[in-house]
């Protein structure tokens, strides 16, 4: 059998196979966005370029026939550079947000649009799962959060931001009210233990996520009851004790231990804790209020303990920090986010790999839309204005109110955020959307199809839908429109998507490598 050599590895191929096909057959990874297996190559995205021999040119492996003895370079700096450039060029003309702007602004990066979709559709049990993915104490935060995320809401510039915080509180209250609140499935015990100093928002959140990773943990606090500032600094009429107990109760119910009346520096030292536990998380709040000898040997800045921004680890190996101990004035929501980040980092650390906080989710951004550009955008949500709880702020939203408010969500996040191949390669190659920034396309969305949404601004002209549609029998189908920079997939004769795709619609949506064609999801449709 003839062979090509890919990065020095002999790869056999069958007559007529391309470099890409030969590579894939042996599991060599070459990225591509426009390839449709089994169909003639389109050679459009150019992500699959490789170097053949010593030629200064790079060739698309999807369209280059393998020839016996061919020397192919796939994994090399210049090939990666070229691929990253191709991705960055595509991103420079890709109009969309991977994640909703609200999600980026929320300190905990909660998947707000997803929660809204569930609430709007009445899927409350799923909504709480989404919420607790990033926020361990939503019923509490739903009462005390300064609603930072709402500043990022696209609707804030037109008819008022979504009431995100109140909706989240509704989801959490409803969950607690079931009597059997959501409890994530826990993995088997890891055999490792973590000491958490401080039972405030950071410590409780860290305990929640450490338990989800299977680690035993003990929360030490100088107070008798857990909750920290949530219990001892916030008035009860704002945050009723029952809510506090119920939500923290879930964490304790997951197996986190609590030991009250333990003062760091008096009853225990960091050294002690480190001998008894695999790691220590300092989450005791305002560092200036902590017994200074207790923090001896740890680097401090003007505001509090210094930790590595990415790993949350202090200057001492195995000792981490979160919440007010880093910056005294931290909002509870930031502390909750810190607690989760520290938990993830500690999880890595305990597993023997270098500590690192959860990867920052990759997202491209549309940026600000002016009022004219908002017009097509606003059709993605219901037309009513921001809701106010009829029963007053303490009561929170009723089910009807919550669902109505959630229906206002414009779902700025991409329908394909979790399956978009462009996003995956952009993340993998560390591509910047800004490097070749150019004029922005106009936002357009085609909602004419019952099951598929079409956003031409996200089209990368890969031709996959055009090829799939050409094999179907839909009357109009899908084709290429325009030339050069303006090439886009479009329904012929200025038709809407509903006119163009029928039997091939879902196949096109599923094969589209970006969110240009996507299955309609959630309440927006």
């Amino acid at each position, binding site marked *: 059998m003839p062979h090509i050599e890919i990065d020095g590895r002999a790869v056999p191929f069958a007559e007529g196979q391309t470099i890409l096909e030969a590579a894939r057959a042996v599991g060599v990874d070459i990225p591509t966005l426009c390839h449709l297996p089994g169909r003639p*190559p*389109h*050679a*459009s*995205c*150019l*992500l699959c*370029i490789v170097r053949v021999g010593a030629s*200064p*040119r*790079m*060739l*698309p492996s999807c*369209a*280059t*026939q393998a020839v016996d003895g061919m020397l192919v370079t796939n994994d090399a700096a210049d090939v990666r*550079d*070229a691929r990253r*450039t*191709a991705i960055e*060029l*595509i991103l*420079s*003309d890709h109009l969309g947000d991977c994640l909703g702007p609200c999600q980026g602004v929320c300190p905990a990066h909660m998947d707000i649009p997803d929660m809204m979709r569930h609430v709007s559709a009445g899927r409350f049990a799923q909504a709480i799962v989404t919420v607790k993915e990033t926020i361990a104490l939503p019923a509490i935060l739903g009462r005390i959060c300064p609603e930072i995320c709402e500043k990022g809401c696209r609707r804030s510039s037109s008819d008022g931001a979504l009431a995100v915080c109140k909706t989240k509180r509704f989801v959490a209250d409803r969950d607690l009210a079931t009597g059997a609140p959501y409890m994530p499935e826990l993995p088997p015990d890891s055999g490792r233990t973590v000491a958490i100093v401080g039972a405030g928002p950071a410590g409780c959140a860290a305990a929640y996520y450490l338990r989800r990773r299977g680690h035993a943990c003990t929360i030490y606090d100088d107070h008798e009851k857990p909750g920290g500032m949530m219990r001892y600094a916030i008035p009860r009429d704002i945050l009723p004790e029952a809510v506090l107990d119920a939500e923290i109760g879930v964490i304790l119910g997951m197996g986190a231990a609590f030991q009250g009346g333990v003062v760091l520096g008096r009853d225990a030292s960091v050294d002690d804790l480190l001998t008894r536990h695999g790691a220590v998380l300092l989450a005791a709040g305002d560092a200036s209020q902590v017994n200074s000898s207790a923090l001896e040997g740890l680097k401090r800045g003007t505001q509090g303990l210094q930790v590595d921004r990415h790993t949350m680890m202090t200057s001492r190996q195995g000792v981490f920090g979160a919440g007010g101990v880093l910056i005294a004035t931290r909002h509870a929501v930031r502390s909750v986010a810190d607690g989760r980040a520290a938990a993830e980092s500690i999880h890595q650390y305990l597993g023997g790999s270098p500590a690192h906080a959860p990867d920052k989710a990759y997202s491209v951004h549309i940026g600000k839309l002016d009022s004219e550009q908002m017009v097509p955008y606003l059709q993605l949500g219901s037309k009513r204005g921001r809701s106010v709880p009829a029963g007053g702020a303490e009561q929170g939203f009723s089910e009807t109110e919550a669902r109505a408010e959630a229906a206002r969500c414009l779902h700025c996040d991409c329908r394909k955020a979790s399956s978009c191949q462009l996003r995956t390669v952009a993340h993998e190659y560390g591509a910047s959307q800004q490097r*070749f920034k*150019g*004029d922005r396309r106009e936002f357009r969305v085609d909602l004419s199809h019952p099951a598929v949404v079409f956003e031409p601004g996200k089209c990368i*002209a890969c031709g996959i839908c*055009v090829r799939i*549609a*050409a094999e179907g029998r839909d*009357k*109009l*189908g*899908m*084709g*290429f*429109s*325009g*030339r*050069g*920079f*303006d*090439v886009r997939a*479009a329904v*012929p*004769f*200025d038709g809407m998507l509903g006119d163009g795709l029928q039997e091939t619609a879902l196949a096109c949506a599923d094969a589209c490598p970006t969110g240009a064609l996507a299955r309609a999801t959630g309440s927006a449709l």
Partner: protein
Amino acid sequence: MIALFPSRRTQAPPPPPIEVLPEPGAFVEAVVADTGREPQALIPILQAVQRRFRYLPPEALHRVAELTRSSPADIMGVATFYSQFRTTPVGRHMVSVCHGTACHVKGSMLIDDALRRHLRLGAGDDTDQAREFTLQKVACVGCCTLAPVIQIDGVTYGNLKPETAPKALRDFLETAGRAEDAGLAPIADGRQAGEIRITIDSCCIAGGALEVHDALVQAARQSRAPVAVKPVTCGGMCHQIPLVEVAAGPREPATYAKVTPQEAEQIVRRHFPGSGLGARVRARVAGVMDRLVEAGAGDVLQRHALDVRDKPVCAFLGPQRRIATEQTGSQDPMSLDEYRAAGGYEGLRRALADMTPEGIVDTMTRSGLRGRGGAGFPTGVKWGKVRQTKAATKYVVVNGDEGDPGAFMDRMLLESFPYRVLEGLTIAARAVGAEEGYLYIRAEYPHAVTRIREAIRRCETAGLLGDDIMGSGSRLSLTVMEGAGAFVCGEETALIASIEGRRGMPTLRPPYPAESGLWGMPTLINNVETYAMVPWIVRNGWAAFATLGTEKSRGTKVFALAGKVRRGGLIEVPMGVTIRQVVDEIGGGVSDGGVFKAVQMGGPSGGCIPASMADTPVDYDALQAAGAIMGSGGMVVLDDRTCMVDIARYFLEFTQHESCGKCTFCRLGTRRMLDILERLCRGEGRKGDIEKLEELSGMVKAGSICGLGQTAPNPVLSTLRYFRDEYEAHVQGRCPAGVCRPLVHYTINQKCIGCTKCAQDCPVDAIAVEPFDVHAIDDALCTRCDACRRVCPVDAVDLSTGREKSHAAH
């Protein structure tokens, strides 16, 4: 005969006041019945629809989808890919403002501005209120020596200035309605005493040759002299048109340049005095002649005096060596007899009777001929490959999609030497074993299409094409395919897609067309000029050709010399002559007192060779080493009033517009390069822009899948290589050449005597008419047309080239 030389009147029949258009659906039915319903009929069908309705009505497109095998997606794809097609209604007349290279460096933007002002078009509008004219930008109409040029429907107006451009619109409305007269029929009654020859190619027509022709015919009739007025092949002396040659009796023919209709009449009377000629008129003619000859500026030339009296013109002709353009200026391009009498079809006769196909291929290989379309691939090797590939059907294709702005030799060859191209093609078909062929000719060349179609018809009648060529039993049938406006179709795989009726999107080679081309069959594709070289080579033998030129670039090359040069035109020179010889000896140096700065060669795929390297020989490898390419042979001379960043921006705008849009590096890479260049030309350059431009250039070159993208960065890279200081100046907000409009400011200094001349000439009233006061220019209104500076009698208009308006003298 008339149909062969479509005049402005036959070509652009003015619509009647109330136009009665057929119902689109019914019209489509008729066209489809005529053209066919196969995919390759799609482009011709849409062209027919657009000719009739001036755009593609939606009803028509729906009907095409119903009646043909093309799907709605195919139809939309094609209708939106080719720039010829319009999907919205337009005004009664299309005004195409040429933005070819020569037009660009001679101010086509100012012409565009002037027309927009005249038609009162707002931003984004293209049609005036009365819906009389629709303005569009076109890449190049191939009349580079008349730059700047506009075309109104089929009528070309050249040598325009911002102030004269609106007059062209008026002239068009006044003259377009003129009734067709007997105009072009030559007088031939069998008792000829002489012949009056006039070149009527597209650019000559733009220069007024038809009017002169009409005047000559009229005068010849009135004089009742036995003389024929004969349209002849292009002589390439485009800077002298309309060019008239009079052959009478035994004397040397006399040549007159830049003839006006009034002078035409006098010329006839001088050489062919008829019975009605009075002494008074005779004297007047003599007077005109004396004046013109003595003026000595080449306004009127007499051939017998050329070698002694007018060296520049002699030089224009002298160093040239004509193969593709053999028999220039003397033959009727449509006369098959004249072509044969001068050795035409001798090559084909030999190829059929005396040579084996392998022998023909071998002759091509040994001649050293390389493809004249630009890349310079050895012709014999290509022919051999097609010859060797086994297949039931093979095709030969003429690539006449000459798209480089600044190049027009293919148009001239097709218009002036149609039989030579056909003979070359027929020899090629014999060599590779093809019996079917296509001539793909760009949409902007209607005259070429008409002439080649007629030439094919005549060859079929004469047994030079068809089922039994010259009695040899060989067959070849030819089809002419008109392009629809897409530069990328000059790329052979895109050209194939276009003939097949698809969007002109290139595919990765291999497979090469020689193995798998048109409909998957082996296909030989050569450029027009390549085929035009073939008959001479076969007739004279490979050795004769191989002795010309340089070791690796044999033979001759046709160039279109244009831009800031005194004598532009079509020239054919042996390979190896230097750029300096071409510019100085043939072109007569830079025009209008400018300083020679560079030559742009190879159009959008080529580069700029600086004056300091003018001794570079014209040869494939030397040009490539210098950062340019031979290309199809456009040679645009640039002077010190040309901004090299602007030139790079100009070409990127072109390639960006012409990119098919398939591969990422070309579709988006060229756009982002253009973004940076536009930024620089607006004075908004940023630190790092030059480096980013270089980096992107490298990526686009390395990663694009076809020649368009791979060569698109060349204009940027070559100007960066030789004129980096100009880029750096732009980053700092200066345009040293004073071209980039946002960086240029006009001011009036204290020398001003208040004569108001500038104010009167200002097309936008940016200067108030204040007699005896020092005038002032409103910078916000000023369009930088330079009219004030040109008209000022006391040198009081200053031009500053920095970002901020300043009063510093230039």
